[in-house]
């Protein structure tokens, strides 16, 4: 690691003040940042420890939703009663991620900012527009089996690796951000940016801005939800394809639906097309298949990851069926 100074912020105001200086990184769980600093991909000159900030609570909002502090650990959020009851898709997504130890460390805010697992990004050497803009993309035509089929550009095909983000997108969460000049709220669907020609810019977060909370809207009345993750081995691995599904079924018909895919997009990939195919349709295997077909429409395969299109389709169809069958 490059040398850096380490400071502990005792208030959010102090953190964002420090964060405004050049080349500063906030550290919470450390599971992404420490990893990337060891690889040389990240090399801040100052690290600001935000673990002492009062952002580790899960609170009910007056509207009946949840306000999750950015420092709530993934395991705590997954096991939280209000999350298990009101947002099973989030609980399941969190528990599908990483390992028990990592979930005890990783935070809600940090998970939103998890970086891609693209091997070329991480090797700190290959051409990579995300790591070093303008150098090219070694993954296009290279080892891209695990990389994205949605939202790619000719500059970057790196996958967003998070499970939590997929659930947050399906749930329509809001990201609360504080900067040196005030606070703002960004819908999670607008928080992540397509790589386009600037894959180094992954979110709307400006330098020095700090995620303070994630707000979940009240659970849809009578809705059921769930998360399915497909991967090579049974655990402790990133998704090849995953699906977060929220279904509100009434009288045998789908009233409302939210579908998001993970492991396949440059960002957590919500599928309005799949949702459209679901809403108003009978709760049936044919509907799940049609929605799954719709979900993968427009997918673009790279040299090694074409199988993900079929895999994602099966993932969506299966998870729709599973969630619909839940009582």
């Amino acid at each position, binding site marked *: 690691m490059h040398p850096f100074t380490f400071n502990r912020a005792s208030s959010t105001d102090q953190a964002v003040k420090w964060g405004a200086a050049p080349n500063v990184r906030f550290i919470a769980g450390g599971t992404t940042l420490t990893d990337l600093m060891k690889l040389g991909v990240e090399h801040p000159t100052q690290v600001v420890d935000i673990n002492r900030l009062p952002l580790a609570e899960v609170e009910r909002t007056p509207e009946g939703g949840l306000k999750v502090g950015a420092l709530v650990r993934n395991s705590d959020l997954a096991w939280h009663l209000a999350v298990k009851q009101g947002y099973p898709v989030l609980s399941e997504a969190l528990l599908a991620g990483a390992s028990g130890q990592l979930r005890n460390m990783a935070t809600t805010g940090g998970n939103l900012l998890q970086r891609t697992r693209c091997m070329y990004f991480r090797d700190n050497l290959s051409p990579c527009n995300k790591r070093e803009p303008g150098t090219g993309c070694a993954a296009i035509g290279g080892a891209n089996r695990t990389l994205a089929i949605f939202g790619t550009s000719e500059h970057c095909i790196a996958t967003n690796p998070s499970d939590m983000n997929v659930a947050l997108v399906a749930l329509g969460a809001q990201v609360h951000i504080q900067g040196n000049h005030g606070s703002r709220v960004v819908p999670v669907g607008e928080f992540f940016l397509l790589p386009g020609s600037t894959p180094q810019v992954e979110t709307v977060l400006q330098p020095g801005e700090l995620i303070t909370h994630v707000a979940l809207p009240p659970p849809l009345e009578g809705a059921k939800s769930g998360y399915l993750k*497909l991967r090579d*081995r049974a655990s*402790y691995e990133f998704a090849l394809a995953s699906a977060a599904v929220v279904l509100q079924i009434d009288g045998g018909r789908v009233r409302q639906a939210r579908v998001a895919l993970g492991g396949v997009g440059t960002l957590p990939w919500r599928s309005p097309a799949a949702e459209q195919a679901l809403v108003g349709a009978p709760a049936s295997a044919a509907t799940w298949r049609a929605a799954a077909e719709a979900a993968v429409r427009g997918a673009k395969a790279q040299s090694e990851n074409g199988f993900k299109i079929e895999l994602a389709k099966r993932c969506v169809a299966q998870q729709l069926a599973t969630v619909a069958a839940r009582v």
Partner: protein
Amino acid sequence: MAPSTSVTVIGQGLPRIDGPKKVSGLAQYTSDHHFPGLLYAVPVTSTVAKGRITALDPRAALAMPGVVEVFHQGNFAGKLFRKQASKGKVDENRPPLSDNTVSYYGQYVALVIARTFEQATEAARAVKVEYASEPPNVSMRLAAEEKTSVDTERGDVDQAFTSAPVKIDQVYTTPVQTHNPIELHASVAVWNGEQFTLFETSQAVMNHQMVMAQMLGVQPQQVRIITEYLGSGFGGKLWPWTHATLAAAAARELGAPIKLVVDRAMMFQTVGHRTNTQQRIRLGATADGKLNCVSHDYLFHNARLDTYKENCGEATGFLYSTPNLRAAWSFARRDIAPPTSMRGPGAVPGLYALESGMNELAVALKMDPLQLRLANQPERDESLDLPFSSRHLTECLHTGAERFGWARRDPRPGSMRNEAGAVVGWGMAACSWMAKALPAKATVQLAANGRARVMCGTQDIGTGTYTVVAQMVAALTGLPLARIDVVIGDSSLPPGPMSGGSMATGSLVPAVQAATQAAIDEALQAAIEHDPRFAGKAPGALAFDQMQVSIKGEQGKAVLLQDILQAAHMDHVSGEGEGAGSAEAQKHYSQHSYGAHFVEVVWQPEIARLRVDRVVTVIDAGKVINPQTGRNQIEGAIMMGVGMALFEETEYDPRTGAPLNANLADYIVTTHADAPEVDITFLDYPDMTLNPLGARGIGEIGLAGIAAAITDAVRHATGVQVRDLPVRIEDLLDAPVGLAS
């Protein structure tokens, strides 16, 4: 007279004697050692796979805080030497930093020494190296580039194959696999001006000493290798690698203890791998399933500068009876680091191919694969024309089939369901691994404090050597294991065997037994000389049990050896023993272990998910000294086999030659959640041609054949025959047993 515990201690699943230290964090592994003034060494690795270093600038690194030295070719060449061909073994012969030629990605090009690990790591990044590089060839598609050699041949394979009524002709490939013991390779080197004390991650301390002495240019007695605990090796830690020589030479240059821990990425670059293989199997049979020919042609890759043989034909010559057989090989050189032995070298990829071929032949014959194997069992080794020392493969097959419930198998793909209604597939394969013993020496002391101490220059790599050696001593002395100290992992001890080839246990039996007996004889002699109660007796008239001497027939009046030694002012009596190894026996017998695997996979086509659910394995490995540690070995091999079949592949970037997935998130191995239910049986027939206990090794055989059994089960579940490992989701998406079924 039989010592009291001898009847029970051999063959008992006793807990490991080193267990309490292992579970309390007190077992000291190589990188746990620390000394005053210790400096940290971090290598700088090449970022090209083929070429030349044109410039190396260490100035920025040297200017960094805590940095003590940067070694590179310009200031280090000549500090290390090559070893003689016949004296010891390494897989990479060229000393590190001895020239400016780069022959693989990750080759050490410099070594940074600093006061802390953090300082050395960052300084290593700051060493500027320029290369004149050429495009590397790391292609995994192989063609014979060297002359073809024949392992074994009989009859006329080509003619027999042409005329065979039923035949298969298929190519099977296995990718590069990387050992990845969880313990990183490491060296902690201390030089005191006269002698090296080298704490190493070694599966063979004696070989390590011999090699290091030559490469450091000192006498063997100036080098002491210590590996008290090893975080496993799977073959990757058999022979010294370049980091070890670097650390030792740096310690001498700087006059300070040096710690060098190879990082996980380097574990894919500089400490060996299992070479890829490309194997063509041609099998011919009569319509009723008698094999009339077996042809096994195989290729693998090699590094540019060193030559290794992956002996895929090891078991081909004797596993089945057939009049016509040939196993032949060649290799192709690549710009890749030297490969090395990995658990069951040769036989593991070799039997994946041969047993897959047998399974495909069974399909072609419309015959049960179990019956095909049973129908082709040889009476003797038809390759060597020797009798088998002890072969019970038929019983392995029968026992395994019974425990598994194989008789209920419906051969139609996708036809079977488990209790939960999911599609299951069943597959099986046979396996074999060589049974050999190496020459070994050991010393046993029986001490006045009532304890025994056994000393041997071998090591415990996790297989249970500490415990089985104690059991060997217990068997003859009657002592409980708690009173036996096993001292191994030190090259200054009597030369013992390497922990490789499943040979350690079998090699140790005769040496430890002889040493124990010699010590007992000394004890009796001491009794006769120093205790009036035994004066004038012939040694043969005395008995020894539980550290007590008695006159035969008067065991009630036994005298503690402790008292005898104390009266004689002796601290201990000591005996030396030696085992000759199996070279002589192998002139007369074909010595091998055997086994059979039966596997159930579960296939969920709706989400393309395949998992290994259940494995039944039966092993014929001679007398098993400790069934608990023994079962653990077989089970661990099965876990690695699940990885071999479904997960493990080291991928190389064709542009740079770099191992791309050089970490444990991208090179995936079996986790707890992937672990199938396992049922293991040992047949336990002693092989008395190998050693007096009839014990053969068990470290490797479990990994042989298992991948073929899994791919057979995959075919049975999905209808897809995968021949290129590992089986991946994308291989199965279009499976005939798919969504419709």
